[in-house]
């Protein structure tokens, strides 16, 4: 099991049942923004189909949730494959949000460990992590959480062997080929290297999530604490 690389490439588009009221479509090919743009386009179109409650992008995959169990899931899956093969792409002119981060310190307890595991000095970890403009590929896991693409390969690390029972909301973490900021307190198996104050989710706001797929994030190092 190689946790350091981007996940395996599937050869063909495929779909599978997730219970009676959801189907997952998985795109073939590389894990990149071009493929993700096609997933966003599929989500927009599939969301308008009858009996579809929501079409939610994952990481180069799409979950379609239904109001009622499908009469014929094979038929529906076929339509998703057809939709993928049409090759429609969605180019989002999303918002770009700057998020101030305090790297290390109490809110980033694993920064030192990450430095040791990657063989980079702490300043380099911070510089490498805060350099890219990260596109939001998907929103999910918990409310307001953003799956970001574009983490520098030098920061790819396996998940922690013992997950933490709870990290506070606003924790900036990395694991595998991903990075993200938790929107609320919860368990985590990732390496927490910093903290942010942004409110990624507010149920009273419309829309409740700060960011949507296609938006971009830049992490702005406010402080680096040892």
């Amino acid at each position, binding site marked *: 099991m190689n946790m350091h690389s981007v996940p395996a490439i599937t050869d063909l588009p495929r779909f599978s049942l997730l219970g009676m009221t*959801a189907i997952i479509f998985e795109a073939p090919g590389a894990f990149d923004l071009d493929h993700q743009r096609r997933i966003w386009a599929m989500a927009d179109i599939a969301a308008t189909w009858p009996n579809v409650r929501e079409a939610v992008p994952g990481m180069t995959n799409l979950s379609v949730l239904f109001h009622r169990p499908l009469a014929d899931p094979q038929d529906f899956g076929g339509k998703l494959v057809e939709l993928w093969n049409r090759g429609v792409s969605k180019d989002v002119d999303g918002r770009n949000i700057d998020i101030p981060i305090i790297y290390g310190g109490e809110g980033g307890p694993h920064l030192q460990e990450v430095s040791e595991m990657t063989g980079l000095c702490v300043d380099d970890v911070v510089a490498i992590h805060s350099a890219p403009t990260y596109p939001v590929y998907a929103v999910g896991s918990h409310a307001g959480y953003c799956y970001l693409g574009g983490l520098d390969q030098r920061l790819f690390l396996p998940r922690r062997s013992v997950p933490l029972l709870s990290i506070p909301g606003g924790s900036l973490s990395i694991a595998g080929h991903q990075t993200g900021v938790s929107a609320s307190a919860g368990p985590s198996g990732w390496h927490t290297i910093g903290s942010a104050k942004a409110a990624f989710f507010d149920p009273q706001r419309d829309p409740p999530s700060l960011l949507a797929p296609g938006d971009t994030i830049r992490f702005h190092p406010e402080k680096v604490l040892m």
Partner: protein
Amino acid sequence: MEILSSTPLATIQDLGRFDHYHDGVGRSGAMDGLALAIGNALLGNDTNAAAIEIPLLPFKLRFDEDLDIAITGADCEALFDDVPLPPDWALSVKAGQTLTLSAIREGCRAYICVVGGFDVPEVLGSRSTQLRETFGGHEGRMLKKGDRLKALGTSVGLPPGGLGATPFRQETGPVTARVLPAAEYDRFTAESQRSFWTTDWQVTPQSNRNGYRLSGPNLTMKDASELRSHGVVPGTIQVPMGGQPIIQLADAATMGGYPKFGTVIEPDHWRLAQAKPGTAIRFVEVDYPAALAAQAELDAYIADIRAAAGRQRRAASGWQS
């Protein structure tokens, strides 16, 4: 009504919060949707009326108005003032009377339904408590002693002595949950597939509204490779690296990355909801038509109770007037 005593984890739940998966908002909602449906059917409520879900006892409350209520789900010692109540039962209460739920005889989650459902604000289309994000339900949290709650309705005219529902099905032996194979099913070894269907899986104490961790033989894959994060729904059976399965449930994350062995079909979620730690669960493979038939059977059972309860309430109102 006022909560006189509560253990942690009692929450307000309706059918769940749908339509916000794209914001990462999980379903939440009653773990035992059947118990919620029975309570709401006996009271003639909207199917989505909110109830209190109580996973640990004792729980005690005092009513401050005349009201019709229903107790469903786990069969527990329920005392209305001093009088014992049957399970799955709707009754009329008067201001000042108390309800005490104590020792559980069978199952592990009890529900208190009220006419009209509990009057808590609807947030993002639901009254369910979203525990992680601390919104919905009553102030976005578990209920505690001293909380005051109100029903949206009062009385629907129950027969004297109350109104109950016949159980869906009386079963003995291990809890059975029917499963549709999921995306990575074929990537598990033949031996793991076999042992999955033949093992009495133990529900471990690390089990809650998020999910149940099961204990049994390790399940291994022919080719372990990392998955891209994808949608997860309540009922999804994931197998992390360690090989011990987890059933994701009402408060599950909306996305995950562990391989998916299968999904417990929706009409069997209530069986899981009532399986306390230590219970044995046996999984039974079904195909899609069998899953549809199971859903139809459960839907018909609830529709029958709803129709018959309506007749009983109309008859009761007729006698009283």
